[in-house]
């Protein structure tokens, strides 16, 4: 147990060091993609609370990212500080999420998915049609980057660190929450609401809270997204974003703390990487020539050209073989290495007879 903890702590420290060092080895576009990963992960952490821990299906997370982004864009283009947008978007998404939780008290699973899908569509239509507020299909441009204590965060690297710090804060808060009695109550709600209710767990309040917290984090993600891309229109917040966030949670490992981080790598970074895979021989260092002979450039060019197909195949294969996502896959592997020893003897005996 402690060896596993030590391994985990070292791995985490290395990953954090790599994230801090990354912008020095990347071009602005690379930094942009990594920032997008950090921002998206915040929304996925929120959905993981709602879906992964509390077991409430939501196809509306993208809508909350959109609400956050529009609040940030509307306010900061009128000269408000991003901090104000942060607060207003967080609180209003929390409130709207709470209200969206009410249907979940009556319907569950795919019915609930449809209710949240309807909400998602409604929000998209508001973005697109209420031109007086949102600028309609023309969107809102020139969203400024924020400044922190008088220091402008307009350069990609500075803004990246700002988003990374936000991700760190959100992660710590989420870690605190799921380790508290609330986290236990969320899991109970997911696994057996009837029994939870009979043990004094106010399932109504926790269901609404799960929606509200998830939505609030969606909003915060949006608040960071707007100054990242600096121009927003309705398109990125259509249903596809909600589906993508759902994919991240499931692919990463629904109900695992690190699931959303890994899921966002798969959804945000992997397609970019696959797109440039035909130039990836440098990854093999001194063996680049060997790699080139094993994997001919034409094959990799093919993958790069059809990167979305390769990406889709990867996701399908993964989910068929590991419904618990990537983290679930590794956890199962760990569990296997621990229990395989006592089981080996009967297996051998069986093989002999």
């Amino acid at each position, binding site marked *: 147990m402690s060896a596993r903890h030590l391994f985990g702590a070292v791995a985490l420290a290395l990953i954090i060091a790599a994230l801090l060092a990354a912008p020095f080895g990347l071009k602005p576009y690379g930094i942009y993609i990594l920032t997008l990963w950090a921002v998206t992960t915040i929304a996925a952490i929120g959905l993981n609370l709602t879906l992964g821990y509390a077991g409430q299906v939501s196809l509306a997370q993208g809508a909350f990212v959109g609400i956050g982004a529009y609040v940030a864009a509307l306010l900061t283009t009128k000269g408000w500080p991003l901090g104000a947008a942060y607060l207003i978007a967080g609180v209003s998404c929390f409130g709207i999420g709470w209200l969206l939780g009410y249907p979940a008290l009556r319907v569950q699973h795919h019915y609930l998915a449809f209710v949240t899908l309807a909400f998602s569509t409604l929000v998209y239509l508001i973005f697109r049609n209420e031109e007086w507020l949102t600028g309609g299909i023309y969107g809102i441009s020139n969203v400024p980057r924020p400044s922190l204590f008088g220091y402008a965060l307009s350069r990609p690297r500075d803004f990246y660190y700002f988003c990374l710090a936000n991700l760190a804060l959100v992660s710590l808060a989420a870690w605190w*929450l799921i*380790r*508290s*009695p*609330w986290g*236990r*109550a969320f*899991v*109970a709600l997911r*696994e*057996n609401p*009837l*029994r*939870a*209710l*009979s*043990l*004094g*767990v*106010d*399932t109504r*309040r926790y269901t609404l*809270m799960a929606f509200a917290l998830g939505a609030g984090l969606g909003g915060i993600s949006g608040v960071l997204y707007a100054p990242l891309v600096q121009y927003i229109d309705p398109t990125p917040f259509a249903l596809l974003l909600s589906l993508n966030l759902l994919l991240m949670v499931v692919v990463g490992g629904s*109900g695992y703390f690190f699931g959303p981080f890994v899921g966002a790598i798969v959804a945000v970074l992997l397609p970019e990487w696959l797109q440039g895979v035909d130039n990836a021989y440098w990854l093999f260092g001194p063996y680049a020539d060997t790699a080139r002979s094993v994997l001919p450039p034409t094959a990799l060019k093919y993958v790069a050209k059809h990167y979305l197909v390769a990406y889709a195949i990867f996701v399908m294969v993964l989910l068929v073989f590991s419904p618990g996502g990537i983290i679930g896959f590794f956890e199962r592997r760990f569990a296997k290495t621990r229990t395989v020893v006592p089981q080996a003897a009967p297996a051998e005996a069986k093989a002999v007879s």
Partner: protein
Amino acid sequence: MSTVLEVRDLTKRFGGIHAVDGVSFEVNEGEILGIIGPNGSGKSTLFNCILGQLRPTSGEVKLDGRAVTGMRPCDLNRLGVSRTFQLLQVFPELTVRENLILAAQEHKGTMLTRLFGARDAGLSGDADRMIEFFRLAHVAQNKAGALSYGQQKLLDAAMAFMAGPRLVLLDEPAGGVNLTMLANLRERLEAINREEGATFVVIEHNMEFVMQLCSRILVLAEGRIIAQGDPATVRSNPQVIEAYLGH
């Protein structure tokens, strides 16, 4: 001896069917009351109506003289009414200790203290005592889903007792449990009844178990009480024999 639970003219209709039909009884403090009856006689529906899982069509439920009819199960539980279900209901992904902490964490403090206070809600000591008492120490750190059926059944019962309830309703505690585990379970229930003065209502099909555990038995058939009394009286009642064996 005071009355803990009072059920007055409780009726539950599903369409034209009277699942529970004007049932009245009382449970006294420290008593172990058994409820028996053939399948479909309304035992579980009766439990669900008492516990707020179903809203009764008419009638009244009182706890310590206070009307609690139709109260939500979670609020009722926090007033000291606990239950187990006919089928096993543990949380497989939580460890044994976490299952037990969950079973009592909502009983004190507020949502805020539960978020910002101690991770274990100050319940580790209580959980360990319960683990010791139900002889689950060797599996305390295991996920509940990894336990044997009998162990899960013990955990299931332990969860019902975790918050120190005044009244516990047990729905078929002996179902599917082997003989050794059954003796273990009965002995644990009797010990809690003796030491903590907890009051029980037990639905059970295992006659042996009911006759040994309970001081008084109600017999339900077609939603009505057809007999009641001490185990010996009930066992020899011709109406009871007829209800069970048919004409």
